Every structure is written in structure tokens, then in C-alpha cells.
């Protein structure tokens, strides 16, 4: 079985972020980028399947600048077989529609029985790309999967989380699956894995190779950023020392009263 895991590079949560005022895009130079933490769970889910199912390969796919290609070595060290990066200046400024449109063509070229992805990305927090990708690829989409129960006879059975509980769903392959953190903590790379990853292939694709004719990037995007502002800052917290429960409870209760919250 051929599994492709779509991954995204996101700015490190702890890094200070700056926006270019003219392009209204995140300045990515000088900021550490890391794998979207949700996608590490997708890699873990793929590697669990690789251990269980014979003749399974795991390919990582990302849209990222050529310069950040090496970031994927860490994910390859976890145990993925190879990586393909769609890298093209024409992709800059892509929104959900443009991203999913371009990625669809790339995934078709790579070929797959199963695509795995994290349920959300950490920066835009849109969560829209997987759904749009599944739709464009014309394959069933199983979202928010917490456990892949079985893959057999060209079908997948999985448990997916809902807002109030879970569902057991069944559908045919090829399919697009997004996973939640419940699939299992991403494994650490072993020393052997790290050494082996140095020899693994990270191939690049360009828009031209995919024959994409519709404009993507900021020209093709269906959204544009009008303004960027800092968040409203809060006043510094009032700090109350509570030697006993009654003092602490009263301090909170009075504060809530003051704000008409009780």
C-alpha cells in the first residue's frame, strides 16, 4: 500500500512573529519553522500502518520553499521512506483554495492508496485544506480519525471523533484521512533512523511539472488580507495571596460580582 502523508511547516509557536506590511504575509526568514505538530501524529499513524501491513511505503508530501527541504529529514528519520516537496515561487500567497488546488495535482502525480494528514494546522488554524483536497481528489474523506481499526480488501474502517462522542465509519480506498492526537504519541527517531534518513530522497516538484494552468499563489487566491493588527492587550493581573480557602474564594467572588459575572 502506498501512503502519502501531507505535512506543513509552521512557524515555531515560541518565536515572535512579524508580518511584512506591504505583502501582509508572515516574514518566514529568520523564524524557526517546525513540522505542524498535528502532522507528526499523521506520520505516526502512517508508520503504525507500515508496521502492520506488508509492502507499505510512506511518502511525505509538502508545499514549502526549497530552502526548508532539509526540515523534512527529521520526519524521514522517524521512519518515512521518502519525501516530495512542491516548491515554486508561484505558490507564494496561496490560500486554502489555491493550496488544495495545487496539492491535488501533485498528489495525483505522486499516486496513493491512502493520504494521511493532521486534522488542523497550527498557524492558520483553518482546517479547510484536507476537506478541499479530498473533494478535489474525488476520494472519500474520513476526518478526525482517532483509530484506524482495519484496512483490508480495499476498505478502511475507522473510529472518528465527533464533538459529542465518536463514530465508526467504513469506506473504500483510496481515501483521505485526517487524524487526531489520539492515534498515539509521535515516535522519536532512533539513531539508526537518523543515519538512514541522510540517504533518503527528498524530491522537488514545480508548478510547471504539474502542468497547472489556473493561477495559484496570491493571484489565484480567493481571499486577501486587508489588515493586520496586534491583539488587544490585557491589563496586568490583580494578584491576591490567599492564606486560606475562604479568603481566596471571597476574593474571586467579589471580583466576579464587580464584573457582574455572578
Amino acid at each position, binding site marked *: 500500500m502506498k501512503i502519502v502523508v501531507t505535512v506543513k511547516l509552521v512557524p515555531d509557536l515560541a518565536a515572535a512573529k512579524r508580518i511584512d506590511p506591504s505583502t*501582509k504575509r508572515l516574514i518566514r526568514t529568520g523564524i524557526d519553522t517546525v513540522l505542524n*505538530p*498535528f502532522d507528526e501524529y499523521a506520520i505516526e499513524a502512517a508508520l503504525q500502518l507500515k508496521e502492520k501491513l506488508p509492502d507499505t511505503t510512506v511518502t511525505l508530501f509538502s508545499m514549502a520553499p526549497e530552502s526548508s527541504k532539509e526540515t523534512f529529514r527529521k520526519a524521514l528519520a522517524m521512519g518515512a521512506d521518502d519525501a516530495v516537496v512542491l516548491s515554486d515561487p508561484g505558490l507564494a500567497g496561496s*490560500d*486554502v*483554495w489555491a493550496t488544495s488546488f495545487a496539492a491535488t495535482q501533485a498528489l495525483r502525480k505522486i499516486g496513493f492508496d491512502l493520504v494521511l494528514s493532521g486534522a488542523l494546522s*497550527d498557524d*492558520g*488554524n*483553518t*482546517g*479547510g485544506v484536507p*476537506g*478541499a483536497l*479530498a*473533494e478535489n481528489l474525488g476520494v472519500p*474523506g474520513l476526518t*478526525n480519525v482517532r483509530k484506524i481499526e482495519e484496512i483490508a480488501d480495499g476498505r478502511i474502517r475507522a473510529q472518528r*471523533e465527533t*464533538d*459529542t*462522542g*465518536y*463514530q*465508526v*465509519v467504513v*469506506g473504500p480506498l483510496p481515501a483521505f484521512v485526517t487524524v487526531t*492526537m489520539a492515534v498515539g504519541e509521535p515516535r522519536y527517531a532512533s539513531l539508526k533512523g537518523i543515519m538512514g534518513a541522510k540517504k533518503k530522497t527528498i524530491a522537488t516538484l514545480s508548478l510547471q511539472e504539474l502542468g497547472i494552468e489556473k493561477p495559484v499563489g496570491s493571484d489565484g487566491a*480567493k*481571499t*486577501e*488580507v*486587508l*489588515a*493586520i*493588527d*496586534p*491583539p488587544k492587550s*490585557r491589563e*496586568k*493581573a*490583580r*494578584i*491576591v*495571596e*490567599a492564606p*486560606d*480557602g*475562604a479568603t*481566596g*474564594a*471571597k*476574593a*474571586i*467572588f467579589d*471580583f*466576579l460580582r464587580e*464584573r457582574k*459575572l*455572578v
Partner: protein
Amino acid sequence: MRDVIVFVEHRGGQTRKVTFELATEARRLADALGGKAHAVVLGKGSESLAKSLQNYPLNAIHYTEDSDCDRFLLEPVVDYVEAVAKASGDAVVLVPNTMLGRDVAGRLVARLEAGITSDVTEICVENGRIGCVAPKLQGSTITTCAFKNTAYGIITVRPNAFAAAPQAIGAELIALSKPAGKSYSIAIENDVEEAAGEIGLEEAAVVVSGGRGLGGPEPFETLLRPLAEALGGAVGASRAAADAGWVPYSLQIGQTGKVVSPQLYIAVGISGAIQHKVGMQTAGTIVAINRDGTVPIGETADLLVVGDLFQIVPALTALVQEAKSAPA
């Protein structure tokens, strides 16, 4: 874009507060755009819910009891919403920023070649153009986005960000007919409700959240739940508590969990690392209880009480209950 279409999330006819928030906002937007406000209600229980939505200022409520919406994952639902949007010609679709809402939204982007803005907390209309305000990059910036190059815009709206105001204007009920020639690939074999009857964390007006300081699963039930119930709210947790297995991941708030904006957030025994902060920093009022006065939550909170949570929480619950039974 002129018309506004609300996707109504429900379970057997039981909906969430965010539906009424969206219906109210749809009216305001439709008026600003010079169009109509629609709602789409799909699956079992839709007819009765459609009727109760007539208490909100919508022009038309489209519904179907088609059981395929409950038997198959997502595809039938997206078909119906797409059909309503296409009949409208150009429209903005409002969906709640929930697990289901995000799934519907992503699909619609491809079906309608639409723009999408997500987790939106404020919408404005200027010269017929819609601007959507949303926190991005883990809350470090607030962006305003608009749609371009498309007839359709999808907006996933953060629950609790808009007010709900009932107003009956005689919305027309329209029974939807089944789109022809469709087959659905993903069957729902089993649908289990684990948190039946609880207020959804994302729409609760009050969230009482616990972290490592609680030391185990029991205090979530014995300390936090009574306080949450007294305040009419829901219980949440930090990642540390979910990772320890004290609570299910569905209660986790933060970077890799849920994002909430209640009127009141009470963080109990949570240090408040940035991963937690991004999930609750837009709450109206933030109160923290911690035995350490130097924890990072102090930078996010409005009030930090330094003391023993095991004494403070029950005493606070008693004060709230007392106030409720004898209003001042």
C-alpha cells in the same frame, strides 16, 4: 455576494447556541449586502428544528429529513448545502467553527471554488465587501480578510463571538428535494454520544478548567464540576491533564485542543504555558487559581489568586450557590 446561508449543526433536531448566533448575524449581514438570509437544516429532526428557527429573523429555512444525512458521512450534507448555495448564485455561507463545521467548510471551498476565512470573531461590510476579523498565528495577530475572484465566501465562525437575538419575521419553510444521481461512499456504522446533555465546551459562557495541579482525575468531578454547574458552565482541561489520562482529549483546551472564548474562564492549577494560552486568551474575564504566584498564567489572567485550590474551589462553589439561592 448578497445572500447569506447558515449551515445549522444539530443532532436529531437538538441544536447548539451557535446556530442562533449565526441566524442573528446572517440577518445583519444580509441587510448590509442587500440580500436574503437562509438557513439549511439537514437530517433527522430537521422539520421541527426548522419550525423553531422561525423565531429568528431569517427569510427562508431549507430542510430535509433525508436519512442519508445521518447514515453517510458528510457527502449528503455537503450536496444539499452546495445546492442551496448554487441556487442563490452568489452567497456567503456561515458555518460554526466546530469539527463538523470545519469539515463542511473545507468541502464547500472545493465545490464552490470559494474563499474561506476561519475562526472569525467579527464581520463587517463596507461598500458591499465583507471583511472577516479573526485571530491568527496562535493569537499573535488579528487579521482582517476579504474574498476575491469568487462568487462564494465561506466563513467559519467562532461560537460565543456573536450575540443571538430572536425575532420572528415569518421565515418561509422550504422542503429540499434530493439531488439526483448521487451515491455516497462512507457509511456510518455506529454513532456514539459520549457527552450527551453536556454544554459544549466551545459555546459555554463559563469554562472551569483544570491542570496538573489537580493531581488526578477525581478533583475534576468532585471540585471543578460542582463549580462549573453552579456557574452554568462546562469543565475543561489543560493538555497535561489530558495527557495524564485524567480527562478525555475532548476536554483539552489549547494549541492542540479546543479554542474557547467564554465570558468567564477559571484556570485551576494550570501554569498557563503558551500552548494553553492560545486556546483561551480571548475569554472575557480570566481568573486563575494557583499555589505559585509566578506562573505564566499571571500574564494572561485578570485575577490570580495564590493559594490552595483544594480549599478555594469548594469555598467558591458554596459562595456561588448561596448567591444563586438568595439573589442580592
